[in-house]
């Protein structure tokens, strides 16, 4: 039982950085922009968080820097995709490479340095509930904030006016535009917000999770986030589930490694990624048969008002 609780708690902890990235990407994709640069943005966010926390000694400022750096670097992607109407896949891949390279260069003298980051605390009352308490409410403040974020996103997307506008913009941008919504402004806003959340996801890794800087420390979590958005069929709750699944497998394989086994470690480390691949395949098959809704209609398609068709 204790073993199970500790794995589940580790699943939440390890899934949370991916969750911030997934939440951000869901907002971005729901506005019609695909951002494949998450991996790079996360890495930049991770380094910004590490470096600012190191120099100020305040992890809160460090995390704010992670968010800001993520949003800031995503301006490039938003400009290319929204204003110029460039190919979003190409731009996203370039962002990913750029973020990876940039963070490696900035951080080359800091590899392995540790910082004093954010510490977990037991959430009052809720933390004392058996099972639920240790799994969900004995973490750090960013984990708690992620619960609020997911709930707020569900309410925002499905219940509020701007949320409805967001859904309309991706389903039929031409119609949304004709009804007086600014497609361009919305796409900029949600792309930058998504970038910021991805930066924060990176910050979580360096400031909270590892509390140190390691080159390439996201280890593909940005790519996993892209996959989990599809797994979550653009619904925040399902996305959250996907993140904890990924986090759970990750936690499990680390326990198995620690317990000592004859299975080579690299094979075990593949497990979370392999699971994501399998689940994605399964989801795509179900989607083809029409059991699940498909991708937002105009995802990845640039919009120009005066283009004649």
């Amino acid at each position, binding site marked *: 039982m204790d073993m199970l609780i500790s794995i589940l708690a580790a699943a939440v902890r390890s899934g949370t950085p991916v969750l911030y990235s997934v939440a951000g990407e869901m907002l971005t994709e729901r506005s019609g922009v695909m951002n494949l640069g998450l991996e790079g943005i996360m890495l930049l966010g991770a380094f910004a968080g590490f470096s600012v926390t190191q120099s100020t000694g305040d992890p809160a400022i460090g995390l704010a820097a992670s968010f800001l750096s993520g949003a800031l670097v995503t301006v490039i992607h938003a400009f290319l995709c929204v204003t110029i109407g460039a190919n979003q896949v190409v731009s996203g891949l370039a962002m990913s490479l750029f973020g990876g390279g940039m963070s490696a260069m900035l951080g080359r003298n800091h590899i392995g340095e540790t910082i004093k980051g954010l510490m977990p605390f037991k959430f009052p009352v809720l933390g004392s509930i058996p099972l639920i308490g240790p799994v969900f409410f004995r973490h750090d403040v960013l984990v708690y904030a992620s619960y609020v974020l997911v709930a707020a996103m569900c309410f925002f997307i499905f*219940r509020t006016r701007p949320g409805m506008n967001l859904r*309309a913009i991706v*389903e*039929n941008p031409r119609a949304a535009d*004709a*009804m007086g919504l600014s497609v361009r402004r919305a796409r900029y806003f949600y792309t930058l917000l998504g970038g910021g959340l991805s930066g924060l996801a990176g910050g979580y890794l360096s400031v909270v999770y590892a509390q140190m800087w390691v080159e390439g420390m996201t280890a593909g979590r940005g790519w996993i986030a892209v996959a989990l958005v599809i797994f979550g069929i653009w619904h925040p709750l399902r996305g959250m589930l996907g993140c904890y699944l990924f986090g759970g497998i990750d936690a499990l394989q680390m326990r198995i490694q620690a317990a000592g086994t004859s299975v080579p470690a690299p094979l075990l480390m593949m497990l979370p990624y392999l699971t994501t691949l399998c689940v994605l395949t399964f989801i795509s098959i179900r989607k083809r048969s029409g059991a699940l809704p498909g991708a937002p209609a105009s995802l990845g398609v640039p919009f120009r008002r*005066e283009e004649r068709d």
Partner: protein
Amino acid sequence: MSESSAPLVTMSGIDKIFFDKYANRGVDFELERGETHALLGENGAGKTTLMNVLAGIYNPDAGRIYIEGQEARFASPKDAIASGIGMVHQHFMLIPAFTVWENMILGMDSVPFVIDKRNVTAKITELSERYSLPVDPGAKVSTLSIGERQRVELLKMLYREAKVLILDEPTSVLTPRETLDFFSTLRRMTAAGHGIVLISHKIEEVLSIADRMTVLRRGERAATVKSGETRKETLVRMMMGHNPENLRRKRARFGQTVLSCENLSARGDRGAISLRGVSFDLKEGEILGVAGVAGNAQDELCETLAGLRSPDSGKIILRGENVAGMGPREFIERGVSYIPVDRTRTGLVPNMNMRENIALKKYWRKPAARGKFMLDWNFLDDLTRSLAEAYSIQTIPAESPVRALSGGNLQKLMLARELSDKPSVILAMHPVWGLDVGAAGFVRERMMEERGRGAGILFVSDDLDDLFEMSDRIMTIFEGRIMGIADNPSDFSRERIGLLMAGMAV
């Protein structure tokens, strides 16, 4: 509301330029309260462009707009909506995945942050009763019929308290019967003080509802006339700039049956049966018109007959051979030619140049193919040059992608490719759709020539005038079933086919 004497809308000297060509040039237009003002003109005359300028979708390159005497500048559709201008586009601006009430309030800032659904549906119900436009506010738009969607569009404008309603070809999706109902709704709106701009190319309809008409020709205003003071013939002349030339039509010489369908059924894109047991024969030298409101399985019929869609059951017999279940290559090799409605998706590859597009249907066989892997580019170059000349296609550099061509030239290019092999069956879907007068006339004449040569032509259109002019027989399709076939041009009747199009047995 200030009851000034100024017209509801005044547009003066509007210019709009696309790619160095004037879509509108110095156009003046005026709309009074309670007036239905029709904008007439051939395809490409600039009607929709002018109204897109009024609706804030396009920025004019010159000219001024006044709303009730006040000069207005619309930076975006939002500004136009705020000034009381609402446009119902030909392609509806609805979100299919949304419900009616969600579509209704889309983009409205006056709706509170957290939406109060009950408030919205109550207002919709009130409006739909006042203007007798019945809709279910909770229904998903994707489940609604075209007529219902149109009602949602109208209600959407009324919900925004639009004073000016711009309707772009509203009757093109309606049966003749529905059109009558629709017009009585419009009368109710003008009686309530709304001004209506009706964009159309159907003169008879316009004469029955409009108070005034403005005719556009090649982007310029040809005339503005009152409804009682003009005749149909005068309007046609104003639209075309000359007297209409009658299509030269030779007596039909029918040969043997080239294509026959027996009980043909096929599924639509969503997997449900949509073509339901269709049977008919097509003879050499015959044009068989297919009448029907868009979306009644015309696409599925043509795709099945072109081998692009596998039939669920039934036979397709080409010159005595059942080819049902074969692929498009087999159909092409047996002389079936397909002119799809979307030229740039199914018909042509926009990013390839002309000779490559021409090669698409020839590359695997002589004389275009040289050996197993090579193409005879010299042959293709010569062929492309002679086809471009014969079909008077605008010349572009040989390496330029064909997306640089206009719609009319693209259609000619596709026609050139499809007809160059002397097909025995031609499946033509809306072949003159969206073309200007000259290009449309050319396409019609080429079809007639093919008929004279002995090809059997299936001619799908939702324009009855066009069907009456071209067809030797007309079959009407409704929800994937053949409702009836009129065997003789003297039997063609607008009323009868109109009823069949609406699914009523006659």
